């Protein structure tokens, strides 16, 4: 019993000592309690070096957490619990969060770097006047394919239905993306809510089943990188990142139309350190910072000034920086409401269960 007590005391002493050391370490690096900032972002969506730089410049300690879907992120913010100060949702989610009163308005006077953002990406339908959100990245959904294995070019969604692509396609596990592709391939809008059109799209997707190798999540990046499949339905950033390391890949935004998306920074209602949140948003908009971040992440930056700091071949690549007349045929996801979203998901689930 005595030994046990001694052991217990020792454990407590060591724990307190460690706590003290950690505290001193934090203090010496200029980080005191109270000045922490919790950032909630998509996985692998920031150059970690920039976080260090922000910490050094401002003395604010950054806690960085990641999510893999808008819905998962929103659920966590709705529940509260963690004090997220900055989050990076996509456009239709921003609309939803605004409607549910989950966002703080952004004080533009505290974000002077906002002037560097291209007008094309300001004042968009999901957030007029950018009252609640500041552009972070934008991009498209398209087809990434291996030019060694695919004969000829792929230019359209409908090309994927060719029998020669049997068991060669990887898809993203997202109801909006996959259903949107089905709808687009039929010439409908990817925001279509007409039941007949949705059924038609689902039936058309079922016909694609023999060509689909797998429906996966973020692993698609690794799988395409390892030549696991020759065709992938991906987001533009995944494509540009892979194309940077492999020469035999090509990315195309299908001619029938596709999704144009925006990820914007917001300050959710869970925020405690609103001052630091503004500072962080402003920091990310700094042209040099944005350029470095863009080179790391691979998606397209809305920051006009940042383009000047980036390699020319990256900026002039029309596949990732399509000019305005090319983005016109693309559509932004609208918030269709929970019932419609459930309907999309049900059809997507049925499609996934459809066996070869």
């Amino acid at each position, binding site marked *: 019993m005595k030994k046990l007590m001694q052991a217990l005391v020792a454990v407590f002493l060591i724990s307190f000592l460690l706590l003290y050391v950690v505290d001193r370490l934090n203090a010496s690096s200029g980080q005191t309690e109270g000045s922490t900032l919790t950032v909630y972002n998509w996985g692998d969506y920031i150059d970690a070096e920039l976080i260090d730089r922000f910490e050094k410049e401002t003395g604010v300690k950054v806690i960085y957490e990641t999510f893999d879907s808008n819905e998962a992120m929103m659920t966590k913010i709705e529940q509260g619990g963690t004090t997220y100060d900055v989050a990076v949702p996509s456009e239709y989610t921003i609309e939803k969060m605004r409607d549910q009163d989950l966002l703080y308005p952004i004080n533009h006077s505290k974000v002077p770097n906002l002037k560097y953002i291209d007008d094309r990406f300001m004042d968009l339908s999901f957030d007029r006047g950018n009252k609640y959100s500041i552009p972070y990245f934008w991009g498209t959904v398209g087809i990434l394919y291996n030019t060694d294995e695919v004969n000829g070019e792929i230019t359209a969604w409908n090309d994927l239905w060719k029998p020669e692509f049997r068991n060669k396609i990887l898809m993203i596990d997202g109801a909006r993306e996959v259903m949107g592709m089905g709808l687009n391939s039929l010439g409908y809008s990817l925001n279509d809510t007409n039941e007949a059109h949705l059924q038609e799209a689902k039936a058309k997707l079922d016909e694609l089943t023999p060509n689909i190798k797998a429906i996966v999540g973020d692993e698609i990046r690794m799988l395409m990188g390892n030549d696991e499949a020759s065709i992938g339905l991906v987001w533009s950033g995944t494509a540009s990142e892979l194309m940077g390391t492999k020469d035999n890949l090509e990315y195309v935004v299908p001619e029938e139309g596709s999704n144009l998306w925006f990820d914007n920074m917001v300050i959710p209602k869970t925020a405690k350190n609103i001052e630091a949140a503004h500072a962080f948003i402003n920091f990310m908009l700094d042209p040099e910072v944005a350029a470095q971040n863009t080179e790391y992440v691979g998606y397209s930056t809305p920051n006009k000034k940042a383009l000047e700091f980036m390699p020319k071949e990256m900026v002039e690549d029309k596949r990732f920086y399509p000019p305005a007349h090319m983005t016109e045929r693309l559509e932004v996801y609208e918030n269709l409401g*929970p019932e419609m979203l459930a309907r999309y998901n049900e059809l997507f689930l049925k499609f996934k269960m459809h066996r070869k």
Partner: protein
Amino acid sequence: MDANKRTFYSIPYMLWIGLFVVAPILLVVYYSFFDLNGNFTFANYQNFFTPVYLMMTLSSFWYAFLITFFCLVIAYPAAYFITQSKFKQILLLLIILPSWVNLLLKAYAFLGIFSTYGAANSFLKTIGIGSKQILFTDFSFVFVSVYIFIPFMVLPIFNALDKLNPALVYASRDLGASSWMTFLKVIFPLTSSGVKAGVQAVFIPALSLFMITRLIAGNRVITLGTAIEQHFLVTQDWGMGATIAVFLILIMVIIMIVTGTRKKGVL
């Protein structure tokens, strides 16, 4: 121990069970009666009896059965071998060791091993069979699941076999029973409790697997677990997700009861 003391000691247990077992189950049942807009409804239950979810239930059962079956086929002889060995403890430790590694990490490792240019296919090529698609097939799904669950099958069977009095086996052989007869009439019945515990420990979690259905089976296998995950995280239709969970709980209770009563029947 007097009654007062007994109640005192039962407090942590009661608190634990109440907060983390009873309350969550009640919450799940409660949520299953609400639709997307928070209105009271039985629609979720009607929805469950549509072909989509019934097919999903069937396929969950089928895969859980396959996983449990292969686990048992591998684990029983393995456990027997371990009990007979001189290095019991080390061999047992080696079986348990992989379960200390994070499940996701193991799944990602298999992504590499089974991929088109991975180790498994290089091996198939060298022995002249040629490259095959292994990843995203039923085979890879069952294989990886069996790999993950096998410690849970080996341990209870090992314990049962280890406790078995060898004198009974000798007696059976002395009395003229063949090895097969001895196994069938003596060893297996006496270790069936271990088998049941193992089957429960594997079948029940296998029913609600979800991560590896996407990672290893590429969503070619859809189980009830996948649907629950989707309803909670993507559709935000907590009602439907909770309803599926209620059915899973019911199924599990039934399995527990069925595997529980048989114990009396055999002995």
